């Protein structure tokens, strides 16, 4: 469309709402997911026992975030058809008609390559390789392969979201360790109860989209059982983290309180049936979902506090047992 055609009578009065703005391209990067990526990657990097120059640390976290955003854009490109039929995702830039699928693909591929190369140049190539693997895992293994094929999609796909603290740690140390693997496991085990709680109260969305969520394929009773089992395993793992060099007394206190609340929430969900849920409009499931958000941020926040205290020489340390 040229400027001359814009001024022609047939275009007068049109709102041009479908013309993409900068924010629409930014929305392709899933900024809300990116906040989690930034936070957990930053904690992984700062908790590592190797000091990193602040500007290099900033760049490393930025490139990890851009890599996460790139995989979000590629996910939106591939999933545009199911995003259009789900109420939660129908206003994303591609189903809303603001950005074309090809543009999302180009942006995703360009930013993927950019983020991996610049993370390698800023920190090290091990971290860059891990970021490249994460993007591949999220886009190809989760989005293209597992999401529409197996009800365990959330479990395996959750691994992609669990990599950022490990990449942050690798950016600082150039490798992996027990601490970074446990940080990975924390997010990995947290993802299924978090998403299954969501699936319990926005059930119709996944039904319409034909995504084989556990609630759709195995029923809601089985989903409640799974939430309880995963929460119990998560609690054991989260408390164990206190006895590594990344943990400590402050982390232990936070972990004990939050895991007690989380297990109680999972137990409450397990005890309920559909009639009870309909009666109170999924109050317990919604409360558990909100708690799950606080849960992850508080655990990583506590690891960050332990790292800062340790740097200031105030760390009491339960660490090194694991």
């Amino acid at each position: 469309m040229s400027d001359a055609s814009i001024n022609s009578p047939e275009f007068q009065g049109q709102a041009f709402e479908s013309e993409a703005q900068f924010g629409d391209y930014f929305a392709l990067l899933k900024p809300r997911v990116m906040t989690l990526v930034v936070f957990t990657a930053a904690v992984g990097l700062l908790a590592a026992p190797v000091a990193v120059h602040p500007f290099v640390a900033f760049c490393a976290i930025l490139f990890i975030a851009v890599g996460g955003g790139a995989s979000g854009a590629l996910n939106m490109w591939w999933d545009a058809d199911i995003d259009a039929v789900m109420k939660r995702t129908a206003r994303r830039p591609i189903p809303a008609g603001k950005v074309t699928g090809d543009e999302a693909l180009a942006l995703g591929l360009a930013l993927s390559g950019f983020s991996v190369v610049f993370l390698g140049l800023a920190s090290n190539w091990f971290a860059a390789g891990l970021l490249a693997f994460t993007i591949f895992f999220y886009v190809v293994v989760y989005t293209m392969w597992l999401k529409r094929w197996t009800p365990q999609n959330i479990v395996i796909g959750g691994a992609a979201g669990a990599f950022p603290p490990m990449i942050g740690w690798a950016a600082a140390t150039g490798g992996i360790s027990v601490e970074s693997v446990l940080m990975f496991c924390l997010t990995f085990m947290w993802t299924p109860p978090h998403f299954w709680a969501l699936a319990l109260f926005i059930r119709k969305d996944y039904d319409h989209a034909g995504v084989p969520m556990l609630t759709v394929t195995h029923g809601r009773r089985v989903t409640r059982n799974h939430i309880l089992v995963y929460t119990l395993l998560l609690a054991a793992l989260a408390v164990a983290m206190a006895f590594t060099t990344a943990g400590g007394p402050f982390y232990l206190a936070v972990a004990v309180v939050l895991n007690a609340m989380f297990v109680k929430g999972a137990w409450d969900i397990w005890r309920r049936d559909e009639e009870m849920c309909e009666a109170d409009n999924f109050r317990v499931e919604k409360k558990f979902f909100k708690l799950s958000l606080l849960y992850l941020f508080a655990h990583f926040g506590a690891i960050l506090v332990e790292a800062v205290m340790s740097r200031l020489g105030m760390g009491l340390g339960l660490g090194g047992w694991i």
Partner: protein
Amino acid sequence: MSLNKQHEIHNRRFGRNLGLGLTLGAFMAIIFGLTMVKVSRGDYEPSRTPTATEVTQ
């Protein structure tokens, strides 16, 4: 045809161009900063082989 009228599409494209310009500017600043840090801490110094006298000592 004269282009005297400011159409809504011009505002939308200005926003997009401004955003892209600022992003590229920030990218330049980051690369400059990163280069300064790496050069000043000697990341690109060639590794020095010990001299014969240093080896014998």
